[in-house]
């Protein structure tokens, strides 16, 4: 099995502060991989390195065997990686339907077309409608995305992320700020839409991580201290001390 994502001795410093201090990580194709860690461990920074929002100070990032270190976000996206955002990141003045359609256009080869009428893009519109069904927002299709509730915006965020049909999907705390019912709905949604794809998620909520992930990596102070299946991680004393113990305290 080839690796979907491979991080090789990845480092990132902001000025004198080293935030990511040599991360090696391999995520296999079709794997659901969660990255957990206490606050300030560098989870978001690591996430932003993989998705090319930040350039690493050193180290390599490979996406399905290809080196993507220091590529532009849109280039990485075109190579099959899509991400969501922790802070809801949608197109607030456009309709919910159009938000999702924006996510489909590039992958359906409409690119920079200024000769197609968007109303007549049957394939893009059909896929957008299907995704709206999947994320449970079909009834809200024509509403400006900015007026959706928080949980709806989070679902839309995931909808935009998967709209391009990416093989590798990165989700940044998909259930942050949700109540229990919304969380279990979202977990179900994520499980469904990532079927047969590679998922890397950064998550705080333990029930989400242990219920969803095939493998878990624990990040503490910019280093991965443990990586393995959920049961192994749960039983790891170093992890308990660094992270889980902190949770129960």
């Amino acid at each position, binding site marked *: 099995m080839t690796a979907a994502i491979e991080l090789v001795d990845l480092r990132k410093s902001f000025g004198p502060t080293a935030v990511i201090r040599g991360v090696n990580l391999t995520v296999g194709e079709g794997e659901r991989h969660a990255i957990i860690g206490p606050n300030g461990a560098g989870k978001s920074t690591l996430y932003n390195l993989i998705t090319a929002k930040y350039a690493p100070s050193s180290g390599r990032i490979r996406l399905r065997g290809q080196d993507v270190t220091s590529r532009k976000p849109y280039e990485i996206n075109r190579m099959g990686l899509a991400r969501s955002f922790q802070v809801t990141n949608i197109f607030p003045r456009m309709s919910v339907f159009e938000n999702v359609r924006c996510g489909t256009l590039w992958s359906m080869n409409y690119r920079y077309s*200024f*000769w197609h009428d968007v109303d007549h893009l049957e394939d893009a519109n059909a896929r957008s409608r299907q995704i709206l069904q999947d994320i449970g927002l079909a009834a809200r299709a024509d509403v400006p995305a900015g007026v959706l509730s928080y949980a709806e915006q989070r679902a839309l965020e995931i909808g935009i992320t998967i*709209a391009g049909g990416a093989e590798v999907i990165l989700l940044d705390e998909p259930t942050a700020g949700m109540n229990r019912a919304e969380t279990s709905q979202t977990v179900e949604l994520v499980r469904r839409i990532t079927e047969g794809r590679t998922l890397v998620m950064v998550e705080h909520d333990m029930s989400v991580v242990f219920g969803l992930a095939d493998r878990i990596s624990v990040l503490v102070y910019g280093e991965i201290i443990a990586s393995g299946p959920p049961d192994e991680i749960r039983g790891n004393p170093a992890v308990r001390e660094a992270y889980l113990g902190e949770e129960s305290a």
Partner: protein
Amino acid sequence: MSGFARRNAIWWAALVLVVLLPQVARSGASIAVLDQMCIMVIFSLSYNMMLGQGGMLSFGHAVYYGLGGYVAIHFMKMAGGGAFFLPLPLVPLIGGIAGLAFGLVFGSFSTNRAGTVFAMISLGIGELIAASSLIFVKFSGGEEGITADRTGLTSFFGIHFRGEVPVYYLIAGWMMLSAWLMYRFSRTPVGRMANAVRDNPERVEFVGYSQKQIRLITFMAAGFFAGIAGGLFALNYEIVTEEAVNLTTSGVVLLQAFIGGVGFFAGPVIGAVVYTLLQTLLSNYTEIWAFYVGLIFVATVMYAPTGLTGLIMMHLPIARAGRLRSLALPYLRIGLPALACALGVIGLLELLHFLSVRATGQAVKRLFWMKFDVDQPLPWIVFAALALGGFLVARRMAPRLAAAWAAANPHAQGARAR
């Protein structure tokens, strides 16, 4: 499909209006106003491709209008001299291609970022080109500008475009075609992604698009249509001067878009029509018309940020619910004192202006079909009282209007949000 049919109905209505207008307003002066309106409509719509659709606030859009005009008039001049074959109706296309080319040149380095950086670069380019137009006089003709004679150009399938009405129809035809194309553009993948870049440039990069590419394409398209407007300007006035590229013209197009409303496709159309009317009609009555336009602009930005179109759109749901009548009295209550306030302000401004320009010994100002002696205190007191009193009464009436508004609105607060 009713929405689709309605949208098309608006286009047909516009076409009929454009065809019939010169039959109604037959005088040469009114046709001249219509010509100017059509040119300004294209110019404003092209500006709003960037601002309203693409989220790029430009302070130098006249660059593409003016340079389009210059290139077009040079081509007219050369074709008129027999250098090559150029039918008159294609002159605006020359301007458009020039606008597109300059859009590519200046857009290539100014579209990396939106926001303040983009605005500052656009201002810099605007200043640069305005200054250049007085330096490179071979191209720009300096302050006299470049003149050409459109009658020297080849006829077009036997149409000679002599006289005002044929020229109007040529301009209006280009206006309808350009407006329609700009509308179509807004409904293509690039047009939609321009909206997405406006809303959230970071997210766009994670659905596979380069925000810079999207901005650049939008920018070039806006340059193209601004150039068409400039080409029509050259064709219509047969002269292009430094005024066409300068920052004042860049300001005018911004003003038009804002007064009309940048959030709507039709906004700049309404803005251009209203601005042209103010400019041409108001200037018949007062020398300080530009001051009033400035006041209207400030009032729009402060009290009606969605522009005139936004005001109209706010009333549509109420009109559909048949409740427009319940607003009549509250509007009258606030409208009359507001009118008094406006009269007072206008009176004071006109008297002040008169003081600064009058000949020695002249003391009587004609205003509102009356005569006022500016050396007496009474006119000043009356106007000041009108202005202040009107303002205070209008302000007291404002809560009642708000209450009536809330009562009339079918979906309470929802309709106010865009």
